[in-house]
């Protein structure tokens, strides 16, 4: 008896719709674990750098020996331009230049200057790991110089011992030359784009998607769909009406969500650096493009949802159908948070581009760096995707599928009824 009940309960509860979210969560954990694992590996790898010693003094020798020992030096010469070219070509992180009079300045109780030319490739959370290691390398060189200073002269100025060098930083990031900022500071400043925007877009897509799929489920559950389909209105208008209505509901929900979330995120931001000072501000045209990108991506997501919604049998099954949208939105948001579009493998880049709602997640950062082709390409792709999905949805609305479910299932049902009646 108990076995019978257990069997029934298991069959009722162990369904695809209950299994998929758990599998997805497991995959996300696996993905995050792999990310963290690769962070650990990156931390252990020696950073690839170039060095130019134009001083040749005691302290520059000390610094150079630290750099050579603890980093993979791909250029060690006297031509800064040649060194920079080599670092760029070999995917290096930075070129460290020790100018003339470096040691002399330190002997004169002044911090010596180290010129750092950073090559920044992405603004994702994981993209600044290698630059962080170089910063740690410079810190190690500082410690060695401090040790030497104390050994040579115990009465040396404590302030100099604590900070024997200063940095003059230039960051090259996607064609822009940004003076006075390191990749970690720049990455931090762009952090809001890396975190807030993907999360808000993700929530917008999920919330609006739930609205449209639920609407389809409710139409079937409340038995209103048949009436709607016999009214004198074009099927394409029904599809578009549902998409736009759900987009409005989703946007209202996302605005409410965004207000709370941006307030939460702003509590972590302590940087008072103004991006506009570094040519990284957006103009009106850029904001317009971001808006268009978001709108078109929302339409693309919702048009995909309405196609999925046609499979809903009722409100409950509609909730399970939102899963593919949630998965795609979360995966794209996670990838964009952790890595920059340009720093991920090509296969992943194609996958990310193919997800239409990943584009507004990347748009703001891309526009800051004048990468218009990615944004405009994304808008065009999402528009084509939307048109294709609407065409598929209208085709389904014009077919029997919406009312009869899959033909095979119906056929089987028909045979069952037929057999029963016979």
């Amino acid at each position, binding site marked *: 008896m108990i076995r019978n009940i257990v069997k029934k309960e298991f069959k009722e509860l162990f369904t695809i719709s209950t299994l998929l979210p758990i599998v997805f969560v497991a995959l996300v954990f696996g993905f995050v674990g792999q990310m963290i694992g690769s962070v650990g590996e990156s931390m252990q790898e020696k950073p690839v750098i170039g060095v130019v010693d134009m001083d040749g003094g005691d302290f520059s020798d000390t610094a150079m020996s630290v750099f050579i020992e603890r980093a993979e030096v791909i250029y060690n010469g006297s031509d800064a331009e040649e060194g920079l070219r080599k670092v760029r070509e070999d995917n290096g992180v930075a070129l460290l230049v020790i100018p003339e009079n470096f040691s002399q300045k330190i002997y004169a109780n002044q911090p010596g200057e180290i010129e750092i030319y950073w090559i920044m490739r992405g603004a994702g959370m994981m993209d600044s790991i290698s630059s962080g290691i170089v910063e740690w390398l410079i810190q190690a060189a500082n410690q060695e110089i401090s040790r030497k200073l104390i050994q040579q002269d115990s009465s040396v100025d404590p302030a100099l011992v604590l900070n024997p060098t200063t940095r003059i930083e230039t960051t090259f990031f996607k064609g822009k030359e940004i003076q006075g900022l390191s990749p970690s500071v720049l990455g931090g400043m762009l952090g809001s784009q890396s975190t807030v925007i993907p999360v808000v877009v993700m929530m917008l897509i999920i919330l609006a998607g739930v609205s449209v799929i639920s609407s389809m489920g*409710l139409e079937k559950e*409340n*038995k*209103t769909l*048949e*009436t709607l*389909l*016999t*009214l*004198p*209105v*074009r099927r394409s208008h029904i599809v578009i009406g549902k998409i736009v209505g759900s987009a409005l509901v989703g946007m209202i929900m996302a605005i409410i969500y965004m207000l709370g979330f941006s307030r939460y995120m702003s509590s972590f931001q302590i940087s008072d650096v103004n991006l506009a000072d570094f040519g990284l501000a957006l103009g009106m045209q850029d904001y317009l493009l971001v808006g268009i990108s978001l709108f078109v991506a929302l339409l693309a997501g919702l048009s995909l949802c309405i196609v999925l919604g046609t499979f809903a049998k009722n409100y409950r099954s509609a909730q399970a159908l939102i899963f593919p949208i949630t998965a795609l939105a979360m995966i794209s948001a996670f990838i964009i948070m952790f890595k920059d579009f340009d720093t991920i493998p090509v296969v992943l880049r194609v996958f990310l581009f193919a997800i239409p709602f990943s584009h507004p997640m990347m748009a703001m950062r891309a526009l800051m760096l004048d990468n218009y082709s990615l944004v405009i390409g994304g808008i065009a792709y999402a528009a084509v995707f939307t048109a294709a999905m609407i065409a598929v949805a209208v085709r389904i609305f014009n*077919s*029997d599928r919406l*009312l*009869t479910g899959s*033909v*095979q299932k*119906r*056929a089987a*049902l*028909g*045979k069952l*009824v*037929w057999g029963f*009646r016979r």
Partner: protein
Amino acid sequence: MKAVEVRELVKDYGSFRAIKGISFEVKAGEIFGLIGPNGAGKTTVLRTIATLLQITSGSITVFGYELPKEAGAVRKIISYLPEEAGAYRNLTGKEYLNFIAKFFGEGEKCQNMVRRGLEIANLGERINDKVDTYSKGMTRRLLVGRALMVDPRLAILDEPTSGLDVINAQEVRRIINSSVEAGATVLLSSHNMLEVEFLCHRIALIDDGRIVASGTAAELKEEYDARNIEEAFVKAIR
């Protein structure tokens, strides 16, 4: 004039043939009933005429408009009441009628339709309550009101009195009759054969996707030497 002309209609669901070559005509201004047991194919026929399902083979014309080519034109002159139809739960009864009327006209025309819908539904003050709070009978009356308020040339009613108590069922039948008196044509289905006998001008008996007999109630009873349509149906399918 022919309101509906169905010729050799075949409808397949995958490999299952639900309708097996049905032909019948509905004259303008009459109430035509399709009767038969559950699963006989009544709803499939009505859904196909109501432009919801594709035709596998055969032809259908509604007031001269051919399906599926002129489905848009057909939708302008028909009104379909599905068997288990519902209304939008978060709308009030009046809002629902208003929503539907806007597809058929604007301004005064729309308002007149809503007024007619309110009269037919006859829900009193409850028309301003959300549909979610309605009983099954109230919802059905609202839906009958919705279906007939637009003055359709052809009303397609699938089991119009399904699930209603005697009082509500009688009221719905009265509404259907008065609608026809006002010029509409009604094609309805029912498995309640006695009801159809008293309501319909002509009847088609349908079983296993085929029409087994058709005519007026009197003709069918005479043909099968039966006391009522139910008995005629049983004799017809033997």
